């Protein structure tokens, strides 16, 4: 039995009222959804709250998901997670803007810190991206979704998804210039060799 069949079995049993089957669906998707929410929302506590809210919404809408529809169950859960994160992040953005007006501008570039850890710097730089760019970057780089799946999650066309992703990468390579400069192994060589 593959993952999809197993998931379908849990879904059918959950729809028949088996608590353990819904718990199994949650356990199956929790890590991936949490990772997405943590990247979007930044802090652990907010991501845990959002994870709980996401699965409560999944519970309410479970009967409405169609196996024959365009989105897999995993993508459908990410669509819900993104909506939850969007709502929370927009209210935080508003609060942040108020703070900026009161206390100065937000950090725009990331400099090497004492440890010089590129991954930490990358996480900080991603957190500073505009929400739409951050979402597609996280879905692509850290959730491994295809452009089509990202388009389904963020409700946008493929061109928009790619454009947001490119802009995110351009912004990140610019803000992490000091970390990334000098790193070799270019895409040019990949293309030339392929």
């Amino acid at each position, binding site marked *: 039995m593959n993952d999809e069949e197993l998931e379908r079995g849990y879904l059918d049993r959950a*729809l028949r009222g088996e608590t353990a089957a819904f718990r199994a669906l949650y356990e199956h998707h929790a890590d991936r959804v949490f*990772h997405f929410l943590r990247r979007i929302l930044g802090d652990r506590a907010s991501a845990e709250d959002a994870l709980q809210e996401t699965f*409560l919404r999944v519970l309410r809408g479970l009967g409405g998901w169609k196996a024959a529809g365009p989105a897999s169950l995993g993508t459908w859960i990410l669509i819900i997670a993104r909506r939850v994160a969007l709502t929370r992040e927009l209210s935080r953005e508003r609060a942040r803007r108020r703070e900026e007006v009161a206390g100065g501008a937000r950090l725009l570039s990331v400099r090497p810190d004492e440890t010089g850890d590129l991954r930490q710097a990358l996480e900080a730089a991603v957190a500073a991206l505009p929400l739409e760019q951050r979402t597609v970057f996280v879905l692509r780089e850290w959730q491994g979704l295809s452009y089509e799946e990202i388009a389904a999650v963020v409700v946008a066309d493929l061109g928009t998804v790619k454009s947001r992703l490119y802009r995110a990468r351009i912004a990140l*390579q610019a803000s992490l210039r000091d970390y*990334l400069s000098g*790193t070799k192994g270019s895409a040019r060589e990949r293309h030339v060799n392929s």
Partner: protein
Amino acid sequence: MSTLDQPTLETLAAYAAGDLSDHQRGPVEALLATSSEARATVDRLTALAAAAAGTLPLALDPAARERIGLVLDTAFRRARRRRRMALGATAAVAAAIAVALAWAPSNRQTPPLAGGDSQRIVTEPGGYRLVTLGDRGVAFVGVDSEVQLGAGGALALRIDRGSVRLVVRRGIEPLIIATPAADVEVLGTELDVSVLAAGTEVRVVRGQVLVRNQHGQRLLWAQEIARVRPGETPRFYEPSGPLGLRQPD
């Protein structure tokens, strides 16, 4: 600060991502051959992808995982209890209607729809019928109506004339109610469907319903009404007076 403009930077990002065709790569590689800044940008983009790929997933704390799981278990049980109560209430209403109808000499309850059955039901100007739609719900066929019960499967009912009130239990697959002007797709809800001289009218009491034909479709929410004329797309309708099943003369 980069001297490359935004479209050029986006093209370089697409190039680094491997999203360009052979034809599109040519001009980019010509630029890379002459511009050290473009080369440095592509190298940074490539290093960025490698750094992202090397970042470990952020794990959910086991205690938080369990805490959220317990909240979901409780919510699931509550939802199941509410669903059962709602089904019980629906069944009670259906039973009450059936009992009431049993007193009327011209009315009788049609036996539950069994697999392979296909029945035509015609009510006269003074009569009603209550029919069950397998295990998915009940249909209350109004006065002076003519319907064909589906023989199992997604097509539950075809309404040729008159009005039907449906109470449908939520399931995985939608039920289809066919009418001359449009099909009505029902997942789990309560609604009235009337086949009038001017077309089909659908009124949603609760839940959601999709009304569709080959010209278009309309999603209806609770308390919304759609009318469909034959050969036209379904449209929202604002009633001037109360709707519902036509009453006996």
